[in-house]
């Protein structure tokens, strides 16, 4: 933990947005930064890198204080040794691809020859060695992102800040780059932060996850813990399962918002986290008879096919996602907007006191 990144950042904007986040990214670990659009993820990375003015804040790497508003410390970005991949990539339009990647190397004192050699190797490592002499403005979206990644990694920074580094990559390049990043991040000794919207990415790349929303930390912790115990609906949604907070009003009844669920017996009056795995939800065209204790009519709000199953999103009174086979879906004639009955056995609902 000697070279952990510590950051406390407070920013207030005139338009009402404010950011107030504190976190620690241990050395040698990857933190995935998740959150909805406009949550403040890019702003936070900018503040850590010293590019965004903070109203109040503290940033340090190990013993080295980079920002400390109370003591007036503000190390400029170029001396923070932070490699950053920007969300919009921002390749230098006046330089070709190789010079873009060599830029940091030359800025930090290497000879042109050495810088170009290293830059070329980085481009090759990212599978875009052939673009070295290309102008930036003819590159495809994915090519741009790979070059931007090479540019940030080439300077061997102490801290890595990656703002959606693979969003424009095609699936196989994404997998490859992710694998490459995983490898690279594994060998990289410092702390690293990866902004992503993709839980898979978080799971594969990150040791810890930091979730922010509207400029506040919603949850933080080791990846596994977070995936098993999401604290909020947003986090649960993000991870794709039905995890809901509710309250047990009598031994076998839990209220989640407007919905009453019958569950396995427990202690009345406690706040609980309800988890309903998508597979356990059954759908029927009309009111079903039989064992399931929870059944209600609702409306299909969305359909998704993911890896061979159809994920059915339903609306009020309890927004849930269930999973059925494609053939089941077509037999039921499920389409967005259709009325449908949902059934869940009480024993299939996990209820954990919180």
């Amino acid at each position, binding site marked *: 933990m000697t070279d952990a990144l510590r950051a406390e950042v407070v920013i207030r904007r005139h338009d009402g947005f404010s950011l107030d986040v504190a976190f620690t990214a241990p050395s040698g670990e990857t933190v995935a930064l998740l959150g909805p659009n406009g949550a403040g993820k890019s702003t936070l990375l900018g503040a850590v890198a010293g590019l965004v003015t903070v109203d109040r804040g503290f940033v340090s790497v190990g013993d080295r204080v980079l920002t400390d508003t109370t003591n007036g410390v503000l190390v*400029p970005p170029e001396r*923070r040794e932070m490699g*950053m991949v*920007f969300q919009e990539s921002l390749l*230098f339009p006046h330089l070709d691809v190789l010079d873009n990647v060599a*830029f940091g190397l030359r800025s930090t004192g290497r000879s042109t020859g050495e810088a170009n050699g290293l830059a070329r190797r980085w481009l090759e490592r990212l599978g875009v060695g052939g673009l070295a002499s290309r102008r930036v403005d003819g590159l495809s979206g994915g090519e741009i992102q790979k070059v931007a990644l090479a540019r940030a990694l080439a300077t061997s920074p102490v801290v890595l800040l990656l703002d959606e580094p693979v969003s424009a990559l095609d699936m196989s390049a994404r997998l490859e780059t992710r694998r490459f990043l995983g490898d690279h991040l594994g060998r990289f000794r410092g702390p690293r932060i990866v902004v992503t919207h993709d839980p898979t990415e978080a799971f594969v790349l990150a040791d810890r996850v930091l979730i922010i929303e509207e400029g506040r930390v919603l949850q933080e912790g080791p990846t596994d813990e977070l995936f098993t115990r999401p604290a909020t609906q947003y986090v649960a949604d993000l991870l794709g399962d039905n995890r809901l907070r509710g309250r047990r009003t009598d031994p076998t009844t839990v209220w989640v918002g407007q919905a009453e669920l019958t569950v396995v017996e427990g202690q009345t009056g406690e706040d609980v986290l309800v988890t309903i795995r998508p597979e356990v939800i059954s759908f029927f065209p009309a009111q079903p008879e039989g064992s399931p204790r929870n059944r209600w009519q609702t409306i299909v709000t969305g359909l998704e096919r993911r890896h061979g199953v159809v994920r059915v999103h339903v609306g009020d009174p309890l927004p849930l996602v269930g999973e059925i086979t494609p053939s089941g879906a077509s037999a039921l004639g499920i389409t967005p907007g259709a009325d449908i009955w949902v059934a869940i056995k009480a024993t299939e609902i996990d209820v954990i006191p919180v």
Partner: protein
Amino acid sequence: MNRPVPRLIVLLGVVGALFVILPIIGLVDRVPWNRLGSLLADPVVLDALGLSLISSLGATAVVLVVGIPLAWLLARASFPGRGLLRAVVTLPMVMPPVVGGAALLFAFGRSGLVGAPLDTATGIVLPYSLWAVVMANSFIALPFLVLTIEAGFRSLDSRYEGVAATLGAGRWTVIRRVTLPLIGPSLATGAVLAWARALGEFGATVTFAGNLGGTTQTMPLAVFVALESDRDAAVALSLILVVISLAVLVLLRDRWWGAR
């Protein structure tokens, strides 16, 4: 997509071009071609030519050195009176150059605001020297450079400078390798405007620096002198001035304008 250029644009553009080209043809038409050779061999003309090149390039250098920072401050720094400062910097363009020259005398002349103490302290007298020519040219050329480059700074996407900083580039590296190249077209244009304006400068130069052959007599001053007596020579000298600047400007080919 290469779409045909709209006719109206071509039409207006051609009118604009003819407006410049016709007078130049008129000028070329009057050139006493047979005398061009002897004029070009005349040491007075050669002196004037040399002085013009030296002083206009010197002035370009001076205005680049002080003008880029000034443009930077006007575009980026915020301080009270910034709008006023920008307007003041524009004034040398508006004043009749002869008045500009007189103003330079009032400030840097032997009995001027700064010139008098300077003379007393060091014995240095600025007017009537090559320095004075460079100063007069710079004074007149500065606004062109500053305003052009300020516009460049303003349309620059400053995020690129942040990117460069995260890559370890210090203040000056960023300026040298990102900021200035990105405003390349403005920079080139500003420098060309300043140089061309300095090359043609007459009024401020003759007032502040005098008109001494071999010391302060630049081409426009030589043209002025020739106009007194030998009109043909004046036209020929102007042509020489025009051809030289044409040559320089054509050499600064398209890519020097830094197409993005």
